[in-house]
């Protein structure tokens, strides 16, 4: 039983999250929850590479968008069943990750240069998707509404919430397992000190490429879920900077390199975002686009300045002080 203990906390969190759509039956809240979970999943992907691996990507949209467009295109243009298309789309996302990772890491890009190159790749994807006919170009792509569980579309939002939870939970359990095994130890060693890791027999290049590939797969999965939930994509939605930013903000605010960080961060971010939007709307009598993002930017700076290990880092620091 003790072998299960590290995973028990994750299961407990999942149980709590699973109850939410039953408690809150408003459509708006349920959509909010699903969207937040999708961002949390994308953040789990980023966190693997950035939090555990220490390689900060500014272009995770490349993976999110590939997953999203892939599942959409495979359904709409090739008539594939979305459940069948899902692993293919995730695989494509992973492939994109592997390619970008191989190019970037073999060129020994780190820090700002790595961030820049990932940003550039994301922009190339975005511009390309905006002109290619297969992605619908600037008009975007619509997944035809056909509510049927076999078609990966659910009439009941609560069900989609639980489906998303299954994916999120599986990823969290996977990451927790990796964390405690050789790959996790080596990934963290690479983050802390590449030369020392190398001298201890760690194939740094292979570890980094493995990390980005898995990271990409996870974020691509989030993209697939987004596509199946919202049923419409265009190049800004799929490959836009918004998802690159949210995928990195959630883990940073919640706690870099922890399995709960991205989930906590996603809820804090979106929670504050929604509160801000509502508050500003009551103040000014109308919606102010972008105001929630301004707050995200402030949160980012404040977190980096005062709590570089995120909320969870603060909590553990306080616990150490109290002890």
């Amino acid at each position: 039983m003790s072998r299960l203990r590290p995973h028990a906390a994750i299961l407990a969190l999942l149980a709590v999250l699973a109850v939410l759509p039953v408690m809150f039956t408003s459509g708006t809240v349920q959509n909010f929850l699903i969207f937040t979970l999708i961002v949390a999943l994308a953040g789990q992907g980023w966190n693997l590479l950035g939090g555990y691996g220490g390689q900060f990507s500014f272009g995770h949209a490349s993976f999110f968008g590939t997953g999203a467009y892939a599942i959409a295109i495979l359904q709409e243009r090739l008539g594939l069943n979305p459940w069948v298309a899902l692993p293919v789309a995730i695989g494509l996302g992973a492939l994109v990750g592997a390619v970008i990772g191989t190019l970037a890491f073999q060129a020994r890009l780190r820090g700002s240069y790595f961030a820049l190159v990932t940003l550039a790749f994301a922009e190339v994807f975005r511009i390309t998707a905006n002109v290619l006919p297969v992605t619908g170009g600037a008009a975007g792509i619509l997944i035809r509404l056909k509510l049927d569980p076999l078609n990966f579309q659910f009439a009941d939002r609560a069900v989609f919430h639980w489906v998303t939870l299954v994916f999120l939970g599986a990823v969290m359990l996977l990451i927790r397992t990796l964390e405690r095994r050789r790959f996790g130890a080596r990934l963290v060693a690479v983050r802390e000190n590449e030369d020392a890791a190398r001298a201890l027999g760690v194939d740094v290049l292979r570890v980094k490429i493995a990390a980005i590939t898995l990271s990409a797969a996870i974020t691509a999965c989030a993209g697939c879920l987004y596509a199946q939930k919202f049923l419409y994509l265009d190049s800004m939605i799929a490959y836009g900077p918004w998802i690159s930013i949210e995928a990195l903000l959630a883990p940073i605010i919640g706690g870099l390199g922890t399995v709960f960080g991205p989930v906590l961060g996603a809820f804090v971010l979106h929670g504050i975002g929604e509160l801000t939007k509502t508050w500003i709307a009551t103040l000014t009598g109308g919606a102010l686009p972008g105001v929630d993002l301004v707050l995200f930017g402030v949160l980012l700076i404040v977190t980096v300045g005062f709590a570089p290990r995120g909320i969870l880092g603060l909590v553990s620091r306080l616990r150490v002080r109290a002890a």
Partner: protein
Amino acid sequence: MSALLEVEAVTMRFGGLTAVDNATMAVPEGAITGLIGPNGAGKTTLFAVISGFLAPTAGRVRYRGEDITDLAVHVRAERGIARTFQVVQPFAGLSVRENIAVGAYLRHAAREEALAAAGAVAERVGLARMLDQQAGALTVAGRKRLELARALATGPALLLLDEVLAGLNPSEIRDMIPVIRRIRDDGITILIVEHVMQAVMNLCDRVHVIAQGRLIAEGTPAEVARDPKVIEAYLGHGAAERMLRVQGDG
């Protein structure tokens, strides 16, 4: 004793500067070999070439007879060559045990085994009591031992120590020397780059002296200490003669 490591005519040039010039030396198996020299002599550069962090401009490095010059650092570790770093940087945020485990994972794929091996290594270097502490909380002496432990955990046949005593006070040095000797007694060959003469004299079976990029002397510690070329390298031109004159007058 056969040579575990052979350095063959290694030259390292950086632009116009020749840091190491045609160095040839052998590290016999089962012994502790020292590499010493004044500051800027090229010790660090030669060490970097031997450990695989620098590719030499010319020359080869052989390990167990096999040419490893072009072998990546992590592959050398797999083959049994481990090194420590002069500026110790433990993996922050990890415990001492987890730090050492990173090395142990090279030989043990499973978590439990790696952690157990890490504990055993910690015993050997005297860190057993600190195993669950945060690595960042260790003193300098503790970190040096952690460096040793991490490298040892990879199960090396050849251990390259890069100024492992730098920054330690005399009593800490005194405590470290038996630890290093014990490692040799366990069958591991050691090449030690060092400034602290007391340790070199105490530990090494043979010593190589490098000055201005060239290997100028080789022998037992006592032989090397008397070698006029070595004295001059450290104390300056004419120093050997002056010393002889002083001894003659005294």
